[in-house]
């Protein structure tokens, strides 16, 4: 390994050397935090460049998302789908499978769960104990199919999964549009009829009679699904043999192959599992928030935000929960900010700064004086 040294005749030099040791536990989160601060600063520069007031924008985001228990609950509602899409991305990214299709898998999951109510697969008068499990199964299954397809194409024909998953995102939107417009439309509007109450995930507000503090709170059962999923994914990745294989393939596919790990089969399984998680997210969104099938609120970009969150959480399922809350806040508060592209732009800048900051984990930057050595 050559020395990358920026030479100066005399005085101070910036010296970069590869890290050989593992940095202390507090170091990576600190670097990530620094990256986010830098991203917010750069975003602020751009906001003021278009005539906005960055401090006002950021203060607004903080107030409108964490200001009181009501908006905090709304923030968690926005975080719920992101937890599941980020989990979906994290397990695929762990194997270096670039599933960019969590968006489409999420949409198909939402469609599958809606079909249970609208087709109908479960008769209208059934109880919540029938509706919710069947909707979960349908959402997970449809998401898994939408993940399986690119996984199979990758395993069988070596088709680049980035492109195929992205293309399936668009196809999923047209698919849902067809059903919303042509089959399940409510009186010609671009949405299905509202689901019966039994097909709603329970919300905190439902218990407002017993516990007054819960009155008006929108947080719903999808959060519990998300947290359970995060714990399960954590166990799979870090504590199971399969998870070990996935990590091994991701870190060193050649070593995995020599160790007898079946990469082809794991590609298909992991993509299907990834899709299933995103599909569960879609189910949670229609059953917990929208309560009907409608394209725009489902295809709202949760799948893409999931990519950033997974990366920011360093693919750690438990960390994903907390990072999702931050991004939920950004999305919730960002809706009222003008120009409307600002939340998206800030998400992008955060991702750029994060990726760049990884360099500091691999290299040690030292500023040294004079011509030592």
């Amino acid at each position, binding site marked *: *390994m*050559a020395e*990358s040294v920026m030479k100066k005749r005399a005085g101070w030099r910036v010296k970069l050397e590869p890290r050989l040791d593992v940095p202390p536990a507090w170091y990576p989160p600190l670097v990530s935090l620094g990256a986010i601060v830098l991203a917010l600063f750069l975003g602020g520069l*751009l*906001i003021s460049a*278009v005539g906005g007031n960055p401090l006002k924008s950021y203060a607004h985001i903080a107030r409108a998302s964490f200001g009181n228990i009501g908006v905090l609950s709304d923030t968690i509602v926005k975080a719920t789908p992101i937890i599941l899409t980020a989990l979906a991305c994290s397990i695929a990214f762990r194997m270096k499978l*670039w599933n*960019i299709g969590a968006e489409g898998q999420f949409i198909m999951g939402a469609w599958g769960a809606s079909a249970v109510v609208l087709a109908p697969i479960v008769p209208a008068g059934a109880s919540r104990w029938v509706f919710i499990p069947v909707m979960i199964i349908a959402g997970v299954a449809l998401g898994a199919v939408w993940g399986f397809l690119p996984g199979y*194409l990758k395993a069988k*024909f*070596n*088709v*680049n999964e*980035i*492109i*195929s998953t*992205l*293309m*399936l995102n*668009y*196809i999923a939107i*047209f*698919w849902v*549009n*067809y059903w919303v*417009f*042509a089959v399940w439309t409510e009186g010609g509007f671009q949405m299905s009829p509202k689901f019966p109450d039994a097909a709603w995930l329970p919300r905190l507000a439902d218990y407002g009679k017993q516990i007054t503090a819960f009155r008006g709170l929108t947080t719903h059962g999808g959060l519990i699904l998300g947290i359970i999923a995060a714990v399960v994914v954590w166990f799979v990745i870090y504590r199971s043999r399969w998870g070990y294989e996935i990590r091994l393939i991701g870190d060193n596919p050649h070593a995995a192959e020599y160790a007898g790990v079946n990469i082809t089969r794991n590609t298909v399984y992991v993509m299907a599992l990834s899709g299933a998680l995103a599909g569960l997210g879609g189910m949670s969104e229609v059953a917990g928030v929208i309560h009907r099938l409608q394209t725009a609120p489902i295809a709202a970009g949760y799948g*893409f935000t999931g*990519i*950033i969150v997974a*990366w920011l959480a360093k693919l750690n399922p438990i960390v994903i929960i907390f990072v999702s809350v931050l991004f939920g806040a950004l999305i919730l508060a960002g809706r009222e900010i*003008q*120009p*409307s*592209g*600002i939340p*998206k*732009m*800030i*998400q*992008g*800048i955060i*991702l*750029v700064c994060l*990726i*760049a900051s*990884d*360099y500091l984990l*691999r290299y040690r930057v030292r500023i040294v004086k004079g011509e030592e050595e």
Partner: protein
Amino acid sequence: MDPIVILSAGVATGTVLFFAALGEVFAERSGVLNLGVEGMMLIGAMSAFSVANSLGNPWLGIVVAMIAAGLISQIHAYIVITLQADQVVSGLALTFVGTGISLVLGEGLSKAGTVAQIPALSVPLLSQIPFLGPIFFTNQSVLVYLGYLIAPLAWYYINRTRPGLHLRAVGEYPSAADALGINVFALRYWYVFVGGMLAGLGGATLSLAVSPGWFSELTTNGQGWIAVGLVIFAQWDPIRAALGSYAFGALRRMILDIQGPLTLFGFDNPFYYNSYLGFFLQMIPYAFTVIVLVIGSREAIRKRLGSPAALGVPYIRGERGK
């Protein structure tokens, strides 16, 4: 459903894809995978439209679009070439950033209405050629003709010139290129910049010639990603990229036109009587991209062709085995 109309429109819309795909060919030939094409195209489309709107000069719009998209591509270049980060994630990030910035700066542009466009013209003699004349040389934008010129020139540059040889060397075997005194880092920066400029040109072609206007994300609506897919199908060859792009453009036009006539092949046209079936037609370009990838990958395996050997691998001086 006039085949000449479909093919002629296909060449026009395909030119957008071609510029973007050609840019990606250059970047990938140098060993850098840039998935930010969609974002760079949006930057190009937005800045071209914005300049044409405020200054009234579409040509200046094209120039600004190319520079803007080229500059934004350098974020990716810095992250993957100097900081050696993962090219896939960085490219995605570039798409987010490009989309976000173009939405923020393009706020209000969608109400701008019509602006001065790049003129269209017919080539005197060539447009008289039966069949080919009306398709390729009649009433096409100047940018379409630019595409005809660039495609063979790019092929010649990559395959037959000394700088082209350096480009390929850097993408196939960077350490050998380095040993011969070729500046791997500088060349990679440069070709990512070229790729960005061409993606910007593609975006500008969209907003100033093919479908004039600024419609936020819907301006490109995934065409940047289709372009990335086309590069794999084209096996990193400019001519194949051009032909693939034109064919794709024709396909996009065909699914629009197929909904028009009352009958189709002597039967009642289902797409006319049930307009909702149009959603399935709209899926076709995206489904077709996947099919094209399957074909491209199979062909690559059969002919033992492949991506540039060092594609996606950061070059670190002095590291073994690279």
